[in-house]
């Protein structure tokens, strides 16, 4: 199958796609388990989400509608290049609307709008092994997973509480999948961790550099590690989104002028725009920055 551009559909050759699909199926069968795969080179440097792109290339079909987000936004360089890449090599439709997308490739965020059963969320993962920081040997971390030896990970949380008085880890916050495998959720904020649990959409994770694929099938329990006396908590803000007034989304701090004035706005630009379209307003609705943010 090839397009007018001269590339195979979605760039990857069919044999590589089949190999990656086999890894994905194995991942789905063993939730949270890291499946090694023979990674292929993609025409983007590592760190640009080549792991996520290989997964996307292997599951995308002509009827799919692709959304790509980076830090919650659709308009960053990384998101735009990946979206263009698939528009060009697969000729698929792209969208910025979470509700319309069938495939969402992401870095750093899970959309605020709850995902549905007909959607697939594909994460770009830099470091797939949650135990790496405490155990550099791959042979040993594989054994630790096989035998569910996860006490060492709790040590990391212990050190947080000892040093800061609370669990200070706020991104890349380790989870247990289906009560069996410990998993690195990729550098999403822990704010998004609860969304992973019992999600109706399929979640796929691709690490290009370390050549690992893992998955959380729909409606799978995902639990964040914690202590009985220091339970898991998500980030919260005193403020509401300055643009749409949301008091329940993940907020980014933006500097609004040279004097260092700042405000908080939704990191998920599609979600924020949707709310504005529905008539919600925030405290800064009349400032020029608010218009800028909602224009796209």
């Amino acid at each position: 199958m090839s397009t007018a551009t001269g590339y195979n559909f979605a760039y990857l050759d069919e044999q590589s796609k089949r190999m990656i699909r086999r890894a994905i199926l194995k991942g789905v069968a063993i939730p949270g388990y890291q499946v090694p795969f023979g990674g292929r080179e993609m025409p983007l440097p590592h760190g640009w989400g080549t792991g996520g792109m290989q997964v996307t290339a292997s599951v995308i079909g002509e009827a799919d509608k692709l959304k790509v987000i980076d830090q919650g936004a659709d308009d960053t360089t990384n998101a735009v290049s990946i979206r263009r890449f698939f528009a060009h090599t697969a000729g698929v439709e792209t969208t910025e609307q979470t509700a319309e997308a069938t495939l969402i490739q992401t870095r750093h965020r899970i959309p605020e709008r709850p995902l549905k059963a007909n959607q697939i969320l594909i994460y770009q993962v830099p470091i797939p092994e949650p135990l790496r920081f405490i155990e550099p040997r791959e042979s040993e971390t594989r054994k630790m997973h096989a035998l569910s030896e996860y006490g060492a990970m709790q040590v990391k949380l212990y050190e947080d509480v000892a040093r800061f008085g609370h669990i200070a880890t706020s991104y890349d916050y380790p989870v247990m999948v289906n009560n069996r495998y410990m998993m690195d959720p990729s550098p999403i904020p822990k704010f998004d961790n609860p969304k992973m649990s019992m999600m109706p959409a399929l979640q796929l994770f691709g690490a290009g550099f370390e050549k690992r694929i893992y998955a959380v099938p729909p409606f799978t329990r995902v639990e964040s590690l914690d202590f009985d006396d220091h339970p898991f908590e998500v980030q919260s803000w005193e403020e509401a989104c300055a643009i749409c007034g949301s008091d329940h989304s993940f907020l980014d701090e933006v500097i609004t002028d040279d004097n260092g004035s700042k405000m908080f706005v939704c990191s998920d630009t599609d979600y924020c725009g949707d709310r504005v379209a529905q008539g919600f307003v925030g405290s800064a609705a009349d400032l020029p920055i608010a218009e800028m943010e909602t224009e796209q």
Partner: protein
Amino acid sequence: MNTTADLLTPTREWQDIAPLLSVRELNKFYAPGKGCGDISFDLYPGEVLGIVGESGSGKSTLLSALSARLTPDSGNVIYNSEQFGEMDLYACEESLRRVLMRSEWGIVHQHARDGLRMNVSAGANIGERLMAVGERHYGQIRTRAEEWLTAVEIDTSRIDDRPSQFSGGMQQRLQIARNLVTHPKLIFMDEPTGGLDVSVQAKLLDLLRNLVSRLGLSVIIVTHDLAVARLLAHRLMVMRRGEVVETGLTDQVLDDPQHPYTQLLVSSILQN
């Protein structure tokens, strides 16, 4: 002459109790004379067995084979586990051996950095085994860590310091605390006082002796220092070129050695 057979015959006070560890015809050789062979003995609860012998005689090889870290060429090591009952260490699942190592057993290495996590705090080093066996209450982990620091005579104010900020003697005591926190039954030690200053050694030995008798620990300790053996061990096994040449109660072996090699060993120590 005392022989291996003596160790198979329990002394009176132990004869009604089942052995904790039974070793039968254990062999592990890297090359002829390099390793250990034909080792058989029973270790009873509360007993401290010393393994002595010159450098290269196979002490560490034997200790590794006994503590499930080095698969022997032949022979059996049977451990009477609280959790799993009687286990043939090299016939059972690796996962069970690893559970033993972090619960019922303790392993104290000669070099503290082999037994400690140098990049996390002293409290985390002690707490790790608790967390590994399922403890999830930070406050309780912290309290237990403080208790164990006190037990090994490290000021509790050092709980958040890393072992790299500790002296050699403190690192060794931390390693002991890290092992004892899960109340193991059996401790394996390889030259725990090696490389320490004499006065630091004495303090560590004193501490070990108190802990062992207070907690009723069973210990297998490797040392080439007969003074250490005299102070800690109830019984001795003397090794030479991978073989046990003499065994018996510590005082008997040291005061009235039967084998010419033991006589040499004892006299050379006395001459120093």
